[in-house]
């Protein structure tokens, strides 16, 4: 202990304290602060980069999931549409068939009617012509027969007789 006290030099202690504090102050200002800040900035940068990478990966996963979901949806939708189209086609064919049938039937009926009408008209026409022809013939016959006055009177009398009967 005595040796320690004897070895102790106040001057050296004084200079050491002074110089060390000065060194501490200068190093703090010119070395430790920029060094520690640089390290901290870099560490923060790495941390942020890692975090954003993680985020991006998560987003990517979400996106892929979304894509898959959308694809699936699209597929089901397509199927639905196809199904619908198929059924629609079937319906349309069915409807068309029905319609065609109806139209045909209608047409047929109309044609039949027309034919009937035409027939009727033709018959009527024929009747008229026959009647005209008959009248003509009758006229001619009557003309021939009624050349004499008595014949005319006789006819009128018979006709009148007929009218009375009618």
């Amino acid at each position, binding site marked *: 202990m005595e040796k320690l006290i004897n070895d102790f030099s106040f*001057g050296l202690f004084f200079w050491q304290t002074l110089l060390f504090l000065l060194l501490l102050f200068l190093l703090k200002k010119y070395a430790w602060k920029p*060094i520690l800040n640089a390290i901290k900035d870099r560490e923060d940068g790495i941390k942020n980069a890692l975090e954003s990478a993680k985020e991006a990966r998560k987003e990517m996963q979400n996106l892929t999931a979304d894509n898959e979901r959308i694809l699936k949806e699209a597929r089901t939708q397509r199927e639905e549409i196809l199904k619908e189209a198929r059924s629609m086609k079937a319906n349309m064919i069915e409807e068309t068939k029905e319609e065609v049938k109806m139209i045909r039937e209608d047409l047929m009926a109309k044609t039949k009617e027309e034919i009937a009408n035409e027939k009727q008209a033709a018959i009527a026409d024929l009747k008229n012509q026959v009647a005209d022809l008959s009248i003509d013939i009758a006229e001619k016959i009557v003309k021939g027969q009624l050349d004499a006055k008595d014949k005319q009177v006789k006819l009128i009398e018979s006709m009148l007789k007929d009218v009375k009967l009618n």
Partner: protein
Amino acid sequence: MRIKLFYILTLVFFGFNMFAQEHGEHQKEHMNIYEEEHTPEALKLKDKIKEDIQHHLKDSHDFVLFSDTQKGKHYGIPLPVILWDNGLKIFSSSRFHHGEEVAEVNGSFYKLYHGKIYKTDAKGTINYDDHHHPANAKPLDFSITKSVFSIILMALFMLWFFSSMAKSYKKHDGVPKGIAAFMEPIVLFIRDDIAIPNIGEKHYAKYMNYLLTIFFFIWFFNMLGLFPLGINVTGNIAITFALALLTFIITQFSGNKNYWKHIFWMPGVPWPMKIILAPIELLGVFIKPFALLIRLYANISAGHIVLMSLIGLMFVFNNWLGSSLSFFLAFAISMIEILVALLQAYIFTMLSALYFGFAVEEHDDH
């Protein structure tokens, strides 16, 4: 990764040290061969080695790189002596002529005796007391001694070294390159393995400056002490005292309510125990930094003594077997000393951080 780094560091410094040491031994050999030719008695050589070691461990007023004891010549530079003795007195240490002459300054006479400056008469008489200690008056000595000079140089070096490291970050946009790549793991080690676990996430930041400075200061000086220049700064009690005092002051000033409560009125124990514990805890406050200063001083001094003794043994044996044996022993001790240099810096920093941690700790339990 960390282990690998320390391995590389050790290798780097080891290489340097080996080269340097061989150099130093060479010088020593040179000067001792001379001595043995003239004073062949081994006893005298042993005393000489002992004195050399003693001299090396102490601070000195000039920066002597090596000496030729035979011719009485010292190679090195003198340093300024600054005394406070009824006014400031500044003069070159060359006027002491390495303790051989009396320096006369403005009518006062000073003599260098065993590394200390005493006020004497014109003849330089030293009076001794009963315990054979000099009884002369000692003026207050603020000299720029070898250690102070080394501290100034080291401070300049550290400033240049770490500010260029800081600049390299700016230059490379935050990417560590060159010095920064080399030193960053150590800085990170101090932050992540010393400061944060001991002080805590919340408070550690404001102690980082001190912890980094103290770690590199002690480590660099410990390493410098292994160089053959014979600079022994961290093995100096005044230095370790100053460092430990700073740790002590910072600890007390950052002490929160809980810290003081745990010292004077320990919570969670019955009151008679509180009274008994208070003085013990108070004593602990002073013992902690005291242990810190003694630990560093003793480790570094002991390392230097052992290493120098082993190197001295080479010349005591003076034969190929014994000398080479001591050479390899000195080699092994050098290796260990490199480890000790780092370890002591680590321990000092770690314990400082631990004490700061005690001071700022927040107990919400109990």
